[in-house]
């Protein structure tokens, strides 16, 4: 009897071993972890989370292979979350907020066998940590195109007697935001040459009340069109209430702003996720600094809302202008930061040293104007355009 039992047990163990070996194959135990600053209530995080599911579907990963941690603050909690994801068997960990970077870098140093990828960060290209990577997208191109849509609306308003003055609600006076509002402004300017813009910063990435108040303040100061780079619904909601046309960010806000919403640009993170996951699954290196573009499908525009225009013909004209500019951006005949399209202190600039490399004093260290254009996101994925150009006034 004992012998029989022993044989049965042996067979069972062998079977279990076989099953587990098969399970190890074809990346079935592969796991990817995501760290998000907030949850889906923030448009910024929702954009990341939606892309996770899109990539999951495209790559055929199971739910157990995707672990998402939400509401992780920009402190040591990020390190603990990253380490916990490693404990759970993740092969690659991704974090989505700028302030997560130092903690992700530390985790990368402590867990060299796991890949750590960080969106919007600036340190990977000169940190020399093999398993730490940054990623961003050339969203300034998307904002430029959204600016063209806004420019057509503004032209309509100007034809009706309004002043060519627009407003922009920005989060922080930081290169990422400066690059964003400047590209938007240049997009509008390509349609309405004499436009001026006022920018108000909220000094927070997500502060619904502050964003609402900033939008209202800009409207009171005479802005007839508003755009934003902050993550709540504050500014679009304020615009709908005041019946002021607006361009949003991170995705469509048409559900709450059916009459005033023009268009929105957003970064599509799914292509990067797919790239990052495939690299790890195939044992290939992930680029230390990856910049998604219109060509990689990383920079997207939502559908133009024709209802925001008084005349259907203007909407069509706007759409055509966007299509033309988009093609020109892709084939390189159009540069968003072409130095001929803007001045600084009344002068056209020919050289500019930007702060690209990491140091605590933020020293300008790299020449970024080449062939008459400011080469954004080519020296590093995160934006470094921080020039205050003529026509734009920062209120705070």
């Amino acid at each position: 009897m004992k012998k029989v039992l022993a044989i049965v047990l042996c067979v069972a163990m062998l079977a279990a071993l076989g099953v587990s070996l098969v399970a190890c194959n074809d990346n079935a135990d592969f796991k990817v972890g995501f760290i998000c600053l907030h949850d889906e209530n923030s448009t910024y995080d929702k954009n990341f989370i939606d892309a996770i599911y899109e990539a999951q579907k495209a790559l055929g990963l199971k739910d157990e292979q995707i672990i998402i941690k939400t509401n992780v603050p920009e402190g040591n909690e990020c390190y603990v979350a990253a380490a916990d994801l490693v404990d759970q068997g993740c092969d690659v960990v991704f974090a989505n907020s700028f302030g997560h970077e130092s903690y992700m870098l530390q985790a990368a140093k402590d867990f060299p066998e796991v890949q750590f990828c960080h969106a919007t960060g600036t340190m990977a290209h000169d940190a020399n940590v093999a398993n730490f990577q940054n990623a961003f997208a050339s969203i300034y191109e998307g904002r430029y195109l959204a600016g063209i849509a806004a420019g057509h609306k503004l032209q309509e308003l100007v034809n009706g007697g309004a002043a060519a003055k627009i407003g922009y609600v920005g989060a922080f006076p930081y290169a990422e935001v400066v690059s964003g509002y400047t590209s938007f402004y240049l997009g509008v300017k390509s349609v309405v040459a004499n436009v001026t813009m006022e920018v108000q910063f909220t000094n927070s990435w997500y502060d619904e009340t502050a964003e609402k108040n900033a939008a209202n303040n800009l409207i009171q100061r005479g802005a007839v069109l508003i755009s934003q780079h902050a993550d709540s619904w504050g500014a679009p909601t304020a615009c709908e209430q005041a019946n002021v046309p607006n361009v949003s960010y991170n995705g469509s806000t048409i559900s709450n702003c059916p009459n005033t919403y023009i268009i929105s640009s957003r970064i599509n993170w799914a292509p990067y996720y797919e790239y990052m996951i495939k690299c790890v699954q195939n044992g290939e290196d992930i680029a230390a600094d990856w910049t998604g573009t219109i060509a990689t499908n990383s920079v997207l525009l939502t559908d133009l809302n024709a209802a925001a225009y008084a005349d259907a013909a203007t909407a069509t004209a706007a759409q055509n202008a966007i299509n033309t500019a988009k093609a020109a951006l892709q084939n390189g005949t159009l540069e968003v930061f072409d130095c001929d399209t803007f001045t600084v202190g009344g002068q056209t600039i020919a050289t500019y040293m930007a702060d690209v490399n990491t140091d605590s004093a933020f020293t300008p260290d790299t020449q970024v104007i080449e062939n008459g254009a400011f080469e954004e996101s080519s020296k590093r994925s995160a934006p470094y355009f921080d020039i205050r150009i003529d026509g734009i006034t920062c209120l705070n």
Partner: protein
Amino acid sequence: MAKVKANKTPLVRISKRTDISGWKALGIRAIAFVAALVLGGIVTAILLEGNPFKFYSYLFEGTFGTPRRIWKLLQDLAMLLLISLAVTPAFKMRFWNIGAEGQALVGVLAAGAMIFYIGDAVPNGVLILIMAVAAVAAGIIWAVIPGIFKAYFNTNETLFTLMMNYVAMCLINYFINIWVTSGSGVLGVLAGGHFPVIGGQPQILTIIIVAVVTALVAVYLSRSKHGYELSVVGESENTARYIGINVKKVVIRTMILSGALCGLVGLLLVGGIHYTVTADLVGGNGFTAILVSWLAKFNPIYMIATSFLVTFLNQGATFAADSFRLGGSFSDIIVGLFFFAIIACEFFINYKVTFNLKSKKKDEAKAAIVTEEVVEEVKEEVQG
């Protein structure tokens, strides 16, 4: 008719009770905890149309599942306990200090400023000492200002300390804007001022410090003259004055202690845990501390249990929310349910509820008997 009505016993009768035994009180709290667990399970089952037991297993998996999670639990418990200890002496004195968040934040700011300005100039050991002095001093200043105003001008300390929180947050953002010239608003990890790691775990030092402070505060409150004085001031200022206690002095002294402990919280957050400065670093613990301290009836030893409960729930429910992919509001609902049950159960500990579900006739008969008894008693008393 009115007379008859007045004689009727109400369906539910609530009476104050003071004689409840410790075990019975503990039993009621245990029932509340279990009831909250069941409620949490039901909510999860409704939201997910599925197995409520998964919720319970996530609750424990998220807190005790791995050594790292246990260390996180212990560290968060220690930090919540420390800031709860900080508000307790003031609360015992009936000084409603809801400014612990701000008092800890200025500690954070002071400690961070020391690293930022003199971190390169002095050795790490000296830097940590300077940080400690700066953080504690900053906490004291932030707490003693409303203390002085209360003592000398009888200003409302609740509003005063609350407003000081916002001033502290704005100060931090102001300094970050000065320090981070790129404008990103993110300071990142500071290089100096990191506390030494004891026993291979960075959390151990924090836990030891908090354990020592807990013991000291417990002794201070229950065994020292100061502790006695502040509880007398809390019971009745007039009595305190009558027996010769200098109320102004006690108020100010107690707020200095509160502020110093909050400053210590800030110091540990910067030097022992985050190595950076942000306005979110205290994370609302200054407000949660009020609940923790109150639930523990201002007893530092009970506070270990209430801090544990809050930390356990937060960490466990957050893990469950992420595992269910339900977002942050789910964990808030769960934690809210627990507090609802636990605060409700305090009612049953302090009051006795009697139901009268018997028939009307019996009621009337009983009422008659009771009335007779009362009459007898009164008679006896009068005769006595």
